[in-house]
């Protein structure tokens, strides 16, 4: 196995009843890469991501994530990756600090480590003034940045982000991407979905799913060349309605 390929997926498939949501997708992601996982609504992104993070059993195919098999080692995957779901993942009725402590506990960090981590996170995100406020009272963009940092609390090798910037304002969206760049710079692999096509440009490589299949996969630059257009938005428009 090539150890630089932290995600290896072969013909991965998910069927619900008689509906194939993910249809034999095949791709690899390299260590430290920012991999954009794009596609139209209902294309199968969230479904595929859930299989990769070990919370949904594939119907068929193969996949390893951080060296672990999604069929046989789902538990190990969960411990070694971070995940931010499409719906907000923190507890609104806990404070910022309590959320960090709670999730640190879930990942089995020691009390001492949790304390250290909490202090670092709060400082890095500039949340000192709201550390004891309920998360529910924070603006969406702050929540999303916090949620991202919490998903990294156990120092995972890979982080999966499902539409982390949906509905976030332009300035905070850019700050969020700075966090992504920073993580990637530290060697963390970032697997991210988005419907913002300017964000697709910030990815090292991008795949585009249509009706359960990956129809294109390359760097943003090469995709634009391939489809002879100037923007990722146009690449998407060309592909998504088949």
């Amino acid at each position, binding site marked *: 196995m090539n150890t630089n390929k932290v995600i290896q997926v072969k013909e991965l498939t998910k069927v*619900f009843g008689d509906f194939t949501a993910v249809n034999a997708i095949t791709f690899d992601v390299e260590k430290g890469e920012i991999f954009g996982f794009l*596609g*139209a*609504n*209902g*294309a199968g992104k*969230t479904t595929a991501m859930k299989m990769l993070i070990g919370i949904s059993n594939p119907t068929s195919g193969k996949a390893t994530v951080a060296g672990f098999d999604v069929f046989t080692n789902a538990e190990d995957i969960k411990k070694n990756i971070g995940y931010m779901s*499409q*719906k907000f993942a923190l507890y609104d009725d806990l404070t910022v600090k309590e959320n960090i402590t709670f999730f640190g506990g879930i990942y089995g960090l020691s009390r001492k480590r949790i304390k250290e981590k909490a202090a670092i996170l709060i400082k890095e995100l500039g949340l000192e003034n709201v550390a004891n406020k309920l998360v529910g009272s924070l*603006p*969406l*963009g702050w929540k999303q940045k916090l949620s991202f940092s919490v998903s990294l609390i156990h120092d995972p090798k890979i982080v999966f982000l499902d*539409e982390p910037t*949906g*509905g*976030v*304002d*332009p*300035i*905070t969206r*850019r700050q969020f*991407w*700075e966090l992504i*760049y920073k993580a*990637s*710079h530290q060697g963390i692999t970032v697997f991210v979905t988005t*419907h*913002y*096509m*300017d964000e697709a*440009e*910030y990815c090292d490589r991008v795949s585009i799913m249509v009706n359960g299949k990956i129809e294109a996969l390359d760097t*943003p630059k090469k995709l634009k060349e391939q489809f002879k257009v100037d*923007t*990722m*938005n146009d690449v*998407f*428009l060309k592909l*998504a*309605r088949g």
Partner: protein
Amino acid sequence: MSIKIANISKSYKKVNALKNISFEVKSGELFGLIGPDGAGKTTLFRILTTLLIANEGVASVAGFDVITDYKSIRKNVGYMPGKFSLYQDLTVEENLDFFATIFGTTIEENYDLIKDIYIQIEPFKNRRAGKLSGGMKQKLALCCALIHKPKVLFLDEPTTGVDPVSRKEFWEMLKRLQQKGITILVSTPYMDEAALCDRIALIQGGKILEIDTPAAIVKHYLKPIYNVSANNMYQLVNSLKAYEYNHSVYPFGEFVHYTDRRSDFNPAELKVYLESKKLSNITIEKTVATIEDTFMELAK
């Protein structure tokens, strides 16, 4: 005037969600409310749809007062709240049917209004709403808000989570609804959508920063903006942010939008600086401001 808002203020326990807001939306206008999360957009929607009562000020929708005539408003407006109002255990079709029934109409009667969006989820009409993808739910919620052919349509972030192709189709549909005489007040975090409105209000911290046509708002941006690109985006952003003369540095797809604090800014000088930071393939070209630039400058 289809919507009149005069001196509306609303505060929750400690926060002032809306501070003395006034504006009017003309009949048949497509009006955008643009602002970050927490700006007060949803509070305003809730006041206009009679779900919340303002502390001060008056407002009317389609000629009806939001306090004294709230029943008429409810019959005549469509509202798509930002958070889903769908019944998760009903199927797609049952949800739509439910909303049609409570407004005393049928899916067939107003089908042409929702057709463009509905055909995209129709193949899944027997699926429970809870099992739809995020964007598919959004499309269904919109159909539900439209099914009784409202005079005024309130859309709170209708395209959040909606893919680019569907967003485009969605806005084409809004334009068609507008031609049918429906007044639309829409909020969106997508700045490219703001450009498609007749007029927009930029709102932040419960206050209106500006109200005008998108074209006029963009003209208010006075600083020259430069598109900068180089071989490495992350280093480019970091280097520009470390440059002592920068006024603003914002990534914009494959470019970074850069403005300088000096009036006699010389791009060649910036290039030399970036080269000293080991960047290559540097380009610096003047570009025009977008709504997004204007918004970020105002929100700074």
